């Protein structure tokens, strides 16, 4: 019995520990799958014709002819929708019509002036025109069908009045005619309701297809185009076809979501057809097709990441890490070589080792504080947050990682290598330089890659020392500038930069516009993970090859 219990406990323990590892692997998947799954949609997605238009305007990419043909196709499909919308909104949203009527009246007055109408005739004609206008405006502003029709008929009776013949006033009658047609079909008593819904429909169509024809070009790029991606288009389509209402079922009860088809809201009106039309002509309206937008990794963004890619962020991260490695690698490898090959067991060496361990344990934000106090505030030559200050801070952070990895790699070189070299008459330094370091090379490289990935992912140390969320791309100048002033070659060192790590923070928490484009948010984080994980995988591969070599296979 006791044995059985012990066996069960033993099995249970084994299962639990295996379960822990499975749990960890699951955690890794839980983190990586949504990041990659949603991040990849920034690169691979179904583009619409709007996206191709955007690319053409922003970067001049794409085939002009194809694009023109696609736009013409899409335009042909869109035209009936725009017409339907315009005609219906004229009936419902009469404010522009009223304004138009007033304009016509004014134009008529100018027309009379232009034709030098005698004074008494002039006031007489104007009075008649004013009557017509007021009749029309009254009809337009009324919600009662009977009143409207009667008013319009009264206006239309004046049509053959010779006073108005061939004058701008004829527009009155055209308007009356058009409006009469609408008033006969649309239930005007629900005008307020229609009006509110119509605004939502118009907004949805703007989201879907871009600004309506005749509208002024919006100032922001993001408003100048319709849905550039199929997922966004589907969202806009949902908003277009269905109205989402939150209805309170009485005091104290939670609001209940209710979805109403717009088609029902507009039942019996000419607009009813629009929704079927959008569904039927969906492919023609937007012309979706699969796109691998690899330029995501080189493009700059537009409108706070609403469009575009992460090119400058990648560039900034590379500049920061490479610069920091330029400092950290020589220092780190030399330190490691000294510690292994020369250092005895003295007090000094103990202090050095303790300091390396301390350095490895300093929180990254404290590195940031140090970088701010030392590189930015104290060193006058730097004086402001910039790439140089940030990469120097990062290099101190990467130093202990490189030292430890290199030390381990140098230590792993078999003693026989060194002895063989010494026996051939080489000195200690020559042995180190020509035998030990090359033999330890792959191991050191592994350490360098790991610290590179650590430096690339760090955010806190560069927060105050040289990273910005929005700013110009570091400029390297041109060859002619370099010849003129060699210092300009290094001008980029003294500029702040964007970086993937801080960008991932800002795009998730700081930035409001990018929240409208989740694929962009996940795309940035995915790029960062991709970069660091790829570096790590490279390190793992190098190391496994190395260990195979050392085992002699």
């Amino acid at each position, binding site marked *: 019995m006791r044995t059985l219990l012990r066996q069960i406990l033993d099995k249970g323990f084994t299962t639990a520990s295996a379960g822990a590892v499975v749990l*960890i692997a699951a955690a890794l998947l839980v*983190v990586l799958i949504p990041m990659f799954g949603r991040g990849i949609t920034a690169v691979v997605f179904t583009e619409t014709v709007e996206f191709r238009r955007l690319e053409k305007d922003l970067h001049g990419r794409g085939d002009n002819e194809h694009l023109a043909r696609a736009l013409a196709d899409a335009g042909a499909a869109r035209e009936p929708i725009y017409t339907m919308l315009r005609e219906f909104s004229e009936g419902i949203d009469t404010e522009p019509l009223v304004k138009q009527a007033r304009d016509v009246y004014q134009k008529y007055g100018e027309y009379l002036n232009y034709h030098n109408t005698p004074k008494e005739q002039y006031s007489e004609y104007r009075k008649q025109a004013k009557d017509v206008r007021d009749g029309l405006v009254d009809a337009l502003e009324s919600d009662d069908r009977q009143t409207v029709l009667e008013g319009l008929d009264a206006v239309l009776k004046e049509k053959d009045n010779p006073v108005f013949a061939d004058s701008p006033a004829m527009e009155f009658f055209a308007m009356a005619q058009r409006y009469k047609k609408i008033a006969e079909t649309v239930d005007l008593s629900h005008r307020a309701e229609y009006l509110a819904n119509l605004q939502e429909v118009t907004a949805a169509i703007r989201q879907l297809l871009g600004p309506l024809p005749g509208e002024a070009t919006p100032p922001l790029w993001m408003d100048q185009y319709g849905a550039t991606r199929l997922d966004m288009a589907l969202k806009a389509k949902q908003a277009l076809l269905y109205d989402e209402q939150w209805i309170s079922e009485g005091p104290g009860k939670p609001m209940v979501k209710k979805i109403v088809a717009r088609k029902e809201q507009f039942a019996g009106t000419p607009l009813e057809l629009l929704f079927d039309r959008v569904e039927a002509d969906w492919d023609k309206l937007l012309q979706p097709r699969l796109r691998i937008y690899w330029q995501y990794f080189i493009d700059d963004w537009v409108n706070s990441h609403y469009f575009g890619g992460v090119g400058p962020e990648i560039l900034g991260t590379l500049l920061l890490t490479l610069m920091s490695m330029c400092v950290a690698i020589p220092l780190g490898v030399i330190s490691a070589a000294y510690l292994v090959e020369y250092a005895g067991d003295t007090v000094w060496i103990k202090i050095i080792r303790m300091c390396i361990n301390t350095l490895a*344990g300093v929180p990254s934000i404290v590195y940031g504080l140090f970088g701010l106090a030392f590189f930015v505030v104290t060193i006058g030559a730097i004086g402001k947050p910039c790439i140089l200050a940030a990469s120097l801070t990062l290099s101190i952070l990467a130093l202990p990682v490189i030292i430890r990895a290199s030390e381990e790699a140098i230590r792993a070189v078999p003693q026989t290598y060194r002895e063989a070299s010494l026996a051939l008459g080489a000195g200690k330094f020559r042995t180190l330089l020509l035998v030990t370091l090359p033999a330890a090379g792959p191991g050191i490289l592994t350490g360098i890659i790991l610290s590179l990935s650590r430096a690339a992912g760090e955010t806190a140390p560069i927060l105050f020392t040289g990273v910005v969320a929005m700013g110009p791309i570091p400029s390297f100048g041109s060859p002619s500038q370099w010849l003129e002033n060699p210092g300009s070659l290094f001008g980029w060192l003294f500029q702040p930069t964007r970086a993937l790590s801080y960008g991932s923070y800002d795009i*998730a928490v700081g930035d409001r516009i990018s929240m409208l484009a989740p694929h962009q948010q996940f795309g940035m984080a995915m790029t960062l993970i991709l970069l660091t994980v790829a*570096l790590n995988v490279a390190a793992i591969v190098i190391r496994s090859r190395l260990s195979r070599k050392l085992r002699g296979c």
Partner: protein
Amino acid sequence: MGNFKSDQYKDPDGEFAGEPMTEVSVQGEKRNRKAAAEFTRPLLLSASQDLAGYVMGHLGRTILFLITTTSVAAVFLIFYFVIREALPFFTTGGGAAILARVREFFTDPGWYPVATEPRYGALALIVGSLYVTAGALVVAVPVGLLAGVFLSDIAPFGLRQICKPVIEILAAIPSVAYGFFAVMVLAPWLQTHLGFSSGTNALNASLILAVMALPTIISVSEDAMTAVGREIREASYGLGATRAETIVNVVIPAGHSGILAAVILGMMRAIGETMVVWMASGNASRIPSPWWDLSQSIRTMTATIAGDMGETPKNSEHYFALFTVGLTLLLFTFSLNLLSEYLLGKAKAGRGKR
């Protein structure tokens, strides 16, 4: 061997002098002699060469040593600058105010640096840091130790080769990416599935910190347990213990200092972490009450520095206060580091004894 004379050129009176070159033209002779000299340089150096070699050797060694001391310099510079910028926080008010400032900093839970009457009480921040760290360790220590045991004692070699890269990749994911995950994926999930009013809270931050502390805990504890010798395990098996009994009663007690060091290193990772807590903890500087309610927002020292420093003018009181928070954090991790080093040293010494 006596005198080994190999240099014909420098030693023309030697026994081999002149002999091989009698038939060669003058020019060719010169070239040959030069080549021979190059080929057979003396292993014995002249006094001046010896001195030069000695000096160069020591000079090179000193240069290498100086380069190696960069780390020492870096540590001292870090301490110097953080302390330099933190001190004015205490000393601006004059002698009597120093104690009051210290007391305010460590006992006042109110951190209101931009109020009209600013208060710089870091108690809530310190508690917040410790709170999420404890929350992370509650999850990470059992899971991490079990995984360490699995890797050191249970898993066959092939499986271990697969598990290690997984853990390395877990460690490789940047903290800001974890923070991104916490805000964009975990927080909405917590809100919709567990009904929290806000998804960015202590639970969220603790969970993510646990995942981030795991690789450290696993690798250090696995090392500690692997270092416990095979003979000890075999002795235990020989006495009839099962594997679980061996691990719990023999391996873990034998490797306890290394395991403790693993926990402390994991704790350091969690307490010094910035981006995750900044993004996921909600940043409300108050002491959680009741203490067990993990769904409350808290604020940590690191997040306070990261969040406030951007909007703080240089050399203001707030700026100095933030450096004081940084100094507290630095001293905290420094002492933890010393402790872990002591423990690891002890573990090493114990291993040496066997």
